[in-house]
């Protein structure tokens, strides 16, 4: 038996430099990265919804979804919430530091299918990161249908991606609404769950696709709301988060029944998820 030995080591990351660190809030930072290998940096491409395996020295690797837009070539944005050892170490890194990157991996959002529909984006906290990539890609491509963005944060100072939110709010055809769980002095916007914003939106379920991303509690509430509004399961799209090691469909850490999040996901329609025993949907 002979098999050609792959010249490229699947597991070996490429070096990337932190060009900039954007502090989104106390828990989230966005790292602007570029591969040290300029040729690779030039040719590197990805699609919204995909993720990178990020190596932090001595801490191993973790999957982080890409929050930038493929059109902005030259750098990759990874927005990271401080959650464990690796992300904490990453948060301590600064401009000029090195990390390792592998990817892009995973099934992206169905961008072609999205192009002809009204789009409803519902995000909570760090969940806006992958959706930001979709929104900016759609806008750059001149999306000509209605776009609605609903974003929930815990508090006003937890609102991430403020620059994007501001610019979306000023874009014609985009309805961008924010809400917070707990108000703070100076906040005059909405207070309450993100589902509370639905009343302010004109939605045509048959013409729309809903992209939902956020903590499990929020996802469950939003899915219930969408079902009430008559969204078909096939038109509801979300991303799943799982512990991952290889990122390429071998190690099986990210399994959900017979599916692997790294390869069959992380983007799934609700229709697909309902065939699986997914804890997040059951509560």
């Amino acid at each position, binding site marked *: *038996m*002979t*098999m*050609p*030995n*792959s010249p*490229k*080591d*699947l*597991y*070996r*990351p490429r*070096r990337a*430099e932190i060009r900039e660190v954007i502090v989104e809030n106390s828990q989230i930072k966005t790292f602007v990265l570029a591969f*040290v290998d300029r040729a690779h940096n030039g040719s590197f491409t990805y699609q919204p919804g995909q993720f990178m395996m990020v*190596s932090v*020295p*001595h*801490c*191993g*690797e*973790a999957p982080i979804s890409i929050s930038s837009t493929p059109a902005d070539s030259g750098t990759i944005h990874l927005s990271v919430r401080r*959650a*464990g*050892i*690796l*992300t904490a170490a990453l948060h301590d890194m600064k401009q000029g*530091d*090195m990390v*390792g990157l592998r990817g892009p991996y995973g099934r992206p959002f169905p961008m072609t299918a999205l192009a002809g529909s009204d789009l409803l984006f519902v995000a909570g906290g760090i969940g806006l990161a992958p959706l930001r990539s979709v929104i900016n890609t759609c806008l750059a491509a001149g999306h000509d249908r209605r776009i609605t963005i609903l974003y929930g944060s815990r508090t006003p100072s937890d609102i991430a991606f403020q620059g994007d939110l501001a610019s979306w709010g000023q874009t014609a055809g985009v309805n961008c609404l924010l809400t917070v769980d707990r108000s703070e002095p100076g906040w005059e916007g909405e207070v309450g769950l993100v589902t509370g914003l639905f009343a302010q939106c004109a939605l045509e379920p048959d013409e729309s696709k809903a992209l939902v991303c956020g903590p499990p509690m929020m996802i469950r509430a939003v899915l219930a709301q969408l079902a009430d509004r008559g969204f078909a399961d096939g038109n509801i799209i979300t991303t799943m*988060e*799982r*512990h991952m*090691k*290889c990122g*390429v*469909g*071998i*190690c*099986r*850490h990210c*399994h*959900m*029944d*017979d599916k*692997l999040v790294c*390869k069959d996901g992380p983007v799934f329609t609700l229709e697909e998820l309902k065939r699986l025993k*997914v*804890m*997040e949907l059951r509560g």
Partner: protein
Amino acid sequence: MKDKYILKKDHLLPLLRKLKKKHRLIAPLQNLHGDTLFTEIDQLDNVRLDLANQPQNSLKRFFFPQQEVLFTYRNPTSDSYRFETAAEERPPSLYFGVRPCDLSAVLYMDVVFSKNARDPHYLHRRQNTILVGLNCNAPFANCFCNATRNGPFIDFGFDLQLTDLGDRFLVEFDRSQGQEIIREWQQFFAAADETDVKAQYQAFLEARGRFSQQVHLDLAARRLADDQVPESVWQDLSMRCQDCGGCAYICPTCTCFTIRDRQTGDHEGERIRSWDACTFSGFTRMAGDHNPVDRQMRGIEKRFRHKLQFDMEKDNRPSCVGCGRCVNICFGGTDIVLFIKMTCGENP
């Protein structure tokens, strides 16, 4: 008979001696303690080749080691951050005495490590390998490869394969490397005749009749797929599991792994891959202690579902090869055979 040969038993050792000149030779040896293991042979003269007992280890760790360094890294903080893959020499290797269960397991691993992505570390070890099979004339007490349908005899996947006919081996090949060996060392091989082939078939019939247990794997797989396994079965299993990971580690087809960094100095370290078991709670636990799988209740379930349901649905065959190694080793007294029996409503 075309493409079937006879090797006299007396000539086995001399043949191995010849083959060892060009190959790293791995075969089941019985050590001084009485355990039989696939072992790399340094010296043919001082070893006890054991073709009568099932080796306690499968070939898994020869291709997919319990722990391996994927690459080393240096100077992570500076711009001379480097990742280096340790180039490992891999002399041509010959695995001798591979039974149908272990052979099937290697074929399964070939798919796992190349289907979704080509794993260079596995494939590097796997290439330049010759597998010399040995059909099982006498299944062991815990064997159930008849139920997993890959034994006791197998007719594909090997380079060379031997069937014990008493004083001689019937030799077949399924790949060109095996044919090449027969051609190069033709002085050891005589053409087989019809009697030999009949004798092989007789051996097969007898082997098939020697299984000490009936395992209704297909029925259990159907019940799993139809979600007809009573919750009480899962509860009993989850209570029994002691979280040792032994069933997965000893299994020739369990290929889950984990990857981690090990710092070896102030400015250097290794990225290590090692075996993992889906039954461990840390297998799915995410940062921040959120765990989408309840190990206590579901740890075992996902392992059995993977083997008997999901792989069955995908490939129409289970990813259990019936080797029986996990039988009777569980600290809580459970194993895949017990699960199948419970699922089928039999009293084990």
